[in-house]
């Protein structure tokens, strides 16, 4: 009797765990299905040539998503230019240069920064960064692509720092000792040995950081001005811009379900999904290559 009971319990628990595991796959598939079923009609509603045109003005049936795609790319690129050097250097500082007590303070602080709600950052952008940029650069408005890039950089930095720092910490101490024992300076050791050895981890950190910025919505919606203009010159950096994420977030609430506009918004979602998928695939490729290399070293 008792044995029977145990067996039933065992079965229930196994099933529960199994269900939790499968559910994540199920959810991803459902979301994907939903996205595709709502987004693909856009291709029939709106001719392709119009879909990739330069004018986004849904009220008059202009559904050109090109400015939105380019807007997202500009902001992401700008954010990477800020976040990548800054993030990697910070990671090097924490992992290689800072004394132990400072390390122990800085690492959790940076990770805390990663948990900062993006709406708070957007708030900061509207009240501090954007007026500052407007006044110092003498711009008509402070809500520009540059503002978005700076703040998004701030969002990507904690991710990049945290993962790069882990990668640097995983470099065997013996590499450093070997290099120092050769009479190389600390700087030569960091730049010539430690950072190259952690290269794949750092690359992965960069990709994950960039992935975060592409999908980021709240901050960019608050600080980039949301004007769907195709950025053509470098000057566009100092002008308002509109991203894919901000467009979906601001328009989805008011759109009539089933209309062309509605389907196009979902189509933008598909494009966004493809972008983040691409970044994630690159990132995981890098990380799996890292595994193979470390296996080779160990063997």
């Amino acid at each position, binding site marked *: 009797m008792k044995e029977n009971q145990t067996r039933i319990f065992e079965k229930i628990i196994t099933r529960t765990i199994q269900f939790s595991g499968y559910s994540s796959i199920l959810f991803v598939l459902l979301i994907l299905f939903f996205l595709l079923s709502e987004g693909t009609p856009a291709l029939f509603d709106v001719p392709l040539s119009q879909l990739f045109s330069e004018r986004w003005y849904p009220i008059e049936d202009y559904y050109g998503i090109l400015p939105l795609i380019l807007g997202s790319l500009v902001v992401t690129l700008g954010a990477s230019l800020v976040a990548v050097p800054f993030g990697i250097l910070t990671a090097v500082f924490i992992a290689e240069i800072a004394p132990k007590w400072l390390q122990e303070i800085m690492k959790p602080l940076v990770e805390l920064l990663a948990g900062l709600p993006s709406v708070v950052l957007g708030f900061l952008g509207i009240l501090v960064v954007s007026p500052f940029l407007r006044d110092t650069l003498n711009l008509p408005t402070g809500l520009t692509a540059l503002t978005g890039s700076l703040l998004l950089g701030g969002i990507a930095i904690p991710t990049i720092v945290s993962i790069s720092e882990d990668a640097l910490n995983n470099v065997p101490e*013996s590499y450093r000792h*070997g290099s*120092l024992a*050769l*009479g*190389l300076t600390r700087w*030569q050791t960091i730049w010539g040995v430690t950072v190259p050895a952690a290269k794949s981890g750092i690359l992965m950190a960069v990709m994950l950081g960039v992935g975060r910025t592409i999908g980021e919505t709240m901050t960019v919606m608050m600080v980039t001005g949301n004007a769907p203009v195709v950025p053509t010159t470098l000057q566009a950096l100092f002008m308002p811009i509109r991203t894919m994420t901000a467009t979906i977030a601001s328009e989805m609430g008011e759109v009539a379900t089933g209309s062309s506009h509605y389907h196009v918004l979902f189509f933008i979602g598909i494009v966004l999904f493809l972008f983040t998928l691409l970044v994630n695939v690159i990132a995981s490729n890098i990380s799996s290559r890292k595994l193979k290399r470390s296996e080779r070293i160990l063997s």
Partner: protein
Amino acid sequence: MDKIIVENLSITYSDGVESLFDINLRIPIHQITALIGPSGGGKSTFLRVLNRLNDLADVTKTTGKVLIDGIDILDPTQDVIALRRKVGIVFSRPLPLPLSIYQNVSYGLELMGEKRKTVLDDAVERALRLAELWDEVKERLHDPANSISGGQQQRLCLARTLSLQPEIIMLDEPTSALDPVSTAKIETSLIELKKDFTVIIAPHNTQQAGRIADHVAFFLQGKLIEFSSAEDIFTRPKDVKTQDYISGKFG
């Protein structure tokens, strides 16, 4: 002539454990001096004092003097980088840098500013020959360093150290992870090297000291128990503890 003179050297780690007690030792030039004794006896710590790699460890207190060519290297104003070029070390685990075979050897020189290809080529070949590795890798100098065997990697590390033309070469259990053939090659190389360099080795077994050492220092629990010529240590040790260790009563 004595290359290194150690006077009253004591070292304390930050956890309060004293690691070396009042060491007095004179290491002669162009000879092989072996440090023997059970692990935890302070051999590695002693080696790491000589090129100040201990600066990286949790050492709180170092007292006494270490004179190399008459200069006290423990003096904080000493140029550590120059010291480490003069006193090279090979660690127990062969750890080539994640570069090619050639680059592993040329790396130190390149970072010191040597750019001429011919000079680098010559230096790499000379160092690899000294380490008895040249013949095995000359066909594939640009392969990754971790594609060669462990024994070859260890000789590569030796060549890397030699490329900077140090005056003193220290080896911390250099053959503990190696096969007998590689071990023999390293030993041959060391006997050849002592003509030009001063060699200090902490072998992982006493037999190795017997095969190659001219002088032997016996360390036990942070103290230098006995120091004399290899012949004396192995045939007529003065201290009973040395005798017990060598005859294998403990260790």
